[in-house]
């Protein structure tokens, strides 16, 4: 049950965490609602790691955004495809930008 004290193991974990907090501070996400959404995703998770925890966090975040109508599913999948294309089109070591695709 011991591990080094790092809040995040990868930049994407920090990013999704901070976006959630920022959305809450912008008055767009009630924290009790958030706790419930995260709790639902964590309920059937047995793996103990930041990777698993923030994967659940990300799934909860997407669910909340879709349910509250902040994002719509089509837009999310279109942009996801664009980012994947950009990642493929970007030479290794360069920053990935949507315009690269």
């Amino acid at each position, binding site marked *: *049950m*011991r*591990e080094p*004290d790092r*809040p*995040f193991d990868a930049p*994407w974990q*920090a*990013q*999704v*965490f*901070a*976006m959630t*907090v*920022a*959305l*809450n*501070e*912008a008055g*767009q996400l009630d*924290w*009790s609602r*958030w*706790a*419930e959404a*995260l*709790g639902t995703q*964590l309920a059937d*998770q*047995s793996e*103990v*790691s*930041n990777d698993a*925890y923030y994967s659940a966090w*990300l799934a909860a*975040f*997407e669910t909340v*955004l879709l349910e509250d109508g*902040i*994002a719509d599913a089509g*837009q*999310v*999948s*279109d*942009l*996801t495809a*664009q*980012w994947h294309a950009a990642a493929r089109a970007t030479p290794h070591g360069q920053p*990935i930008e*949507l315009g690269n695709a």
Partner: protein
Amino acid sequence: MRALETILVGKGLVDPAAVDLIIDTYENKVGPRNGAQVVARAWTEADFAQALRDDATTAIESMGFAGRQAEHMEVLWNTPDTHNMVVCTLCSCYPWAVLGLPPVWYKSAPYRSRAVSEPRKVLSEFGVTLPESTKVKVWDSTAEVRYLVIPVRPEGTEGWSAEALADLVTRDSMIGTGLAKEPVT
């Protein structure tokens, strides 16, 4: 994740600079040293201890440690008779302002269930063995209420400065899965 970010930034709901600032805060600025200062002050200043009892949220804010989600803070005083420990059975609610982000074990399913079902066993795995006569109370955090445990002040620290005392206060002792460190003599 990038897709969600693009949408939120594009709609003006999330400012990328604010996101970077939040990351920096939780990676570099906020951590259990904040809570240790609160505990050391509670041990050394009777007025501050009383202020914590009356309204922990305000007393802690007066030290510059404010919660981000307007959560209510409560302090739990450990004594030789009662040992308090904290869990969030639903998800991972935790007093960020005073402890930073929770360790992985705090967020894990085993801790979230076993802290309630077999707290003494969990404590023993953290190296904490309490006398049978000490009651163990487990507190379930929520989005609205977060707890900070004030561990028992170690013997032999009479006359110590708050600064020196703060070094004895570990993160786990403020969750209730540990005790304050004994002074090295």
